[in-house]
């Protein structure tokens, strides 16, 4: 630990370092790509530690209270039973999809639907070790020198999911991944995912999160890598609702090749006490398109922290980002969006917008949209606003006989509509609208 000021001292750090030593003999049995990634990652994590607010990217989110909760590292577990009700809670009404259940990051075939589509391979990361697509892409895209939690996860993850959609495979029905975290004592989990979409493949993946902990706090450091190869298309949905016992640091690293499309729709709701999302998209090919839509409705003492990076590396790409937040009660919202346009990435169009509605008297919003542009023939813009209910709009509605509360709900729905209307699956859209309704109560 070189620089104490940028790190938080915690027993969890010491546990992580010790755990690596203890398990290093087991790592030798893994795929060499995984072992090499772990070795590199632990080196970075030793340097980085858990970030304090002195680290620019963690300026607004203080992890000290989280790390004080004496989390223990997850251990290898037998097959745990999970209440049906917990899984059912995450399911989306009327949606025809494959349900994939993961418990503490572990893929549970016994609780999941079988995905009988030719060209789709789905397994735990351990079982995927020999697959060429896994070996080619695992651990390749995250800059571990910069991301503290991704480094810890890469070094120490135990369980994970691997999905490969082979060349020209179009998966008609969406996959719905339901992540369940269960524990009896304060526990720190580090699940991992790798999705690889082959050339011209197409898939929609929905992810939801649930906890079953009998009141014990859990801290989940989730890392997902996504590779979208040429011409491939992916629609990706995060539905982040959960209870206040969970704290999430969630890293998604997307790597896109030429002519590909990646759309991310993220909605988070009151409950989970911390959501820290890192969503990084690298547009590393021509004619790539990416859309990032986010909606965060925060309440109570919740902290919702969204960090995104859109990295334009090649010419003729388009990216569009829209994050909208509604902050109730004493909640805190953080938005940091970075757009990089590299020197060669001429003819880039990149847009980014962050709008916040502050409702709670003590709610706090910190927004930092950021552009770094090294090419001249580009169109880039960003915008950020913070405001409240428009009194004129409220008056208009009230004068037409709509009660105060209903009028406010209506205006929030209208505010969120810019994001929700973008959701291409109607069942998911109405599910999210219902969650907004519920979150406003």
């Amino acid at each position: 630990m070189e620089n104490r000021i940028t790190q938080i001292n915690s027993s969890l750090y010491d546990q992580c370092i010790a755990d690596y030593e203890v398990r290093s003999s087991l790592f030798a049995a893994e795929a060499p790509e995984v072992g090499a990634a772990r070795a590199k990652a632990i080196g970075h994590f030793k340097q980085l530690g858990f970030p304090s607010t002195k680290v620019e990217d963690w300026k607004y989110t203080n992890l000290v209270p989280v790390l004080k909760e004496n989390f223990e590292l997850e251990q290898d577990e037998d097959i745990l039973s999970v209440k049906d009700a917990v899984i059912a809670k995450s399911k989306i009404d009327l949606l025809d999809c494959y349900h994939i259940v993961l418990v503490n990051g572990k893929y549970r075939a016994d609780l999941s639907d079988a995905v009988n589509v030719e060209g789709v391979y789905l397994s735990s990361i351990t079982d995927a070790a020999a697959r060429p697509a896994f070996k080619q892409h695992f651990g390749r895209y995250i800059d571990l020198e910069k991301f503290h939690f991704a480094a810890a996860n890469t070094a120490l993850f135990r369980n994970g999911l691997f999905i490969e959609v082979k060349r020209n495979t179009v998966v008609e029905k969406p996959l719905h991944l339901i992540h369940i975290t269960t524990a009896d004592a304060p526990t720190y989990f580090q699940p991992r995912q790798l999705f690889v979409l082959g050339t011209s493949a197409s898939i929609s993946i929905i992810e939801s999160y649930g906890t079953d902990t009998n009141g014990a706090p859990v801290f989940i450091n989730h890392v997902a890598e996504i590779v979208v190869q040429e011409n491939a298309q992916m629609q990706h949905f995060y539905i982040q609702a959960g209870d206040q016992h969970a704290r999430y640091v969630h890293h998604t690293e997307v790597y896109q090749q030429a002519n590909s499309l990646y759309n991310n729709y993220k909605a988070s709701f009151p409950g989970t006490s911390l959501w820290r999302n890192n969503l990084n998209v690298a547009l590393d090919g021509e004619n790539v398109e990416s859309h990032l839509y986010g909606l965060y409705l925060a309440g109570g003492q919740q902290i919702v922290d969204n960090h995104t990076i859109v990295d334009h590396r090649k010419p003729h790409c388009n990216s569009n980002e829209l994050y909208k937040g509604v902050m109730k009660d004493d909640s805190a919202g953080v938005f940091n969006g970075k757009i990089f346009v590299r020197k060669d990435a001429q003819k880039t169009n990149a847009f980014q917008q962050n709008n916040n509605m502050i409702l709670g008297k003590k709610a706090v919003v910190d927004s930092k949209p950021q552009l770094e542009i090294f090419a001249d023939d580009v169109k880039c813009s960003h915008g950020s606003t913070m405001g409240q209910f428009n009194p004129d709009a409220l008056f208009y509605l009230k004068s037409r006989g709509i009660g105060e509360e209903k009028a406010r709900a209506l205006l929030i729905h209208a505010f969120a509509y810019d994001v929700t209307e973008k959701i291409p699956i109607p069942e998911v859209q109405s599910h999210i609208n219902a969650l907004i309704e519920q979150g406003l109560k």
Partner: protein
Amino acid sequence: MSTDLDILKDVSTEEYKYGFTTNIEMDFAPKGLNEDTIRFISAKKNEPDWLLEWRLKAFRHFEKMEWPTWQNFEMPKMDLQGISYYAAPRKKAKLNSLDEVDPELLATFEKLGIPLTEQKMLAGVAVDAVFDSVSVVTTFKGKLKEMGVIFCSFGEAVQEYPDLVKKYLGTVVPHTDNIFAALNAAVFSDGSFVYIPKGVRCPMELSTYFRINAENTGQFERTLIVADDDSYVSYLEGCTAPMRDENQLHAAVVELITLENAEIKYSTVQNWYPGDKDGVGGIYNFVTKRGICKGVNSKISWTQVETGSAITWKYPSVILRGDNSTGEFYSVALTKNKQIADTGTKMYHIGKNTRSRIISKGISAGHGQNSYRGLVQVGSGADNARNFTQCDSLLIGDECGAHTFPYIESKNSSAMVEHEATTSKIGEDQIFYLNQRGIDTEKAVALIVNGYAKEVLNQLPMEFAVEAQKLLAISLEGSVG
């Protein structure tokens, strides 16, 4: 009050400060930075004890500070021990006539339309022009004095108005603020002091441009402007013609204070030597500028046109403490060749109903790197705070960069904050349109850039605006086609 004769004497000794004559050589502080240097400066300036103590305190703090690392450029290596802190080293000897001046520089003057005497002065030719200007200074001084306005060098203020200086010095930019502010507090050589008494509307634009002793005031100047209740002042600073200089650190501090209903308008046109085409030489312009709207209904407005310096690194800020106070920031920053600008503003909303407006226009050409970094902070007590920020970047050429780092922090649910930023290049159709009408590409670009920067240039007093416009055009020369 100083008589004309005193001023003449003042000015002539000031001249010597940078001189080459032997009898003044002892006025140079030995190179290096230590407590002795500070005592030397303080003694030379005949300062009271409290000021020496203040300097020493700042220096002791400075020693404990580290260089910042968060900036968006590589920090140049600076040897602070290699500088003489009392008389800035100027390698170039004074020239005897305009014939000896670099013709390129003369051509620039020509385009700027600077009168001959001023040209000589700015190029460092030792001429009588100095005395002309002194008379200008004195006429103005008389008129200002009548109204009770104090406008003098910092050194003079320390001697003649120690109470005012003591009351306000370092209250807006404390020496603990940042490493350059600490350095400045320790070694500042001179600067300007302005005090506008209650109810006075300063009848003319105050400008360092006329103040000869400010022309070559060392790299560490300090400006303190206090506008008492119901007063108004517009202050201009800057060098509107190129200065040929070594790679020098310029770490000034500017503090503005407005009391009830007062307003300060502070304009800068900065065109220090930017270094040559390969980025050799040029000024490091690391300046701390901050104003505080202390009283209710007060207003501070910063306008800056930054076309010079190898590195420009400053964030003129406003602390909006009084209720209903207003802060404004208008900026045009142009970087070309290897120039770097990391500039922007900070608006701290503390009082109720405070408003701020930020308009920043960045232009990057050649290998220039231009960053806007801004903070808009709304405190929990700042009910109904309102901010509007617009920062646009224009890119000319594919080797340059434009960056935006806005920080927007709100702790109040009644705040309305808007930020927008765009980045684009000059439209080919716009240039084509002008080409079609017989305007060559270079002129067309200048025209478009001027149009782009208009919103900011309009904020400048008229004479300055005209010069700034020409400056932009000149700075862009050679960066197109």
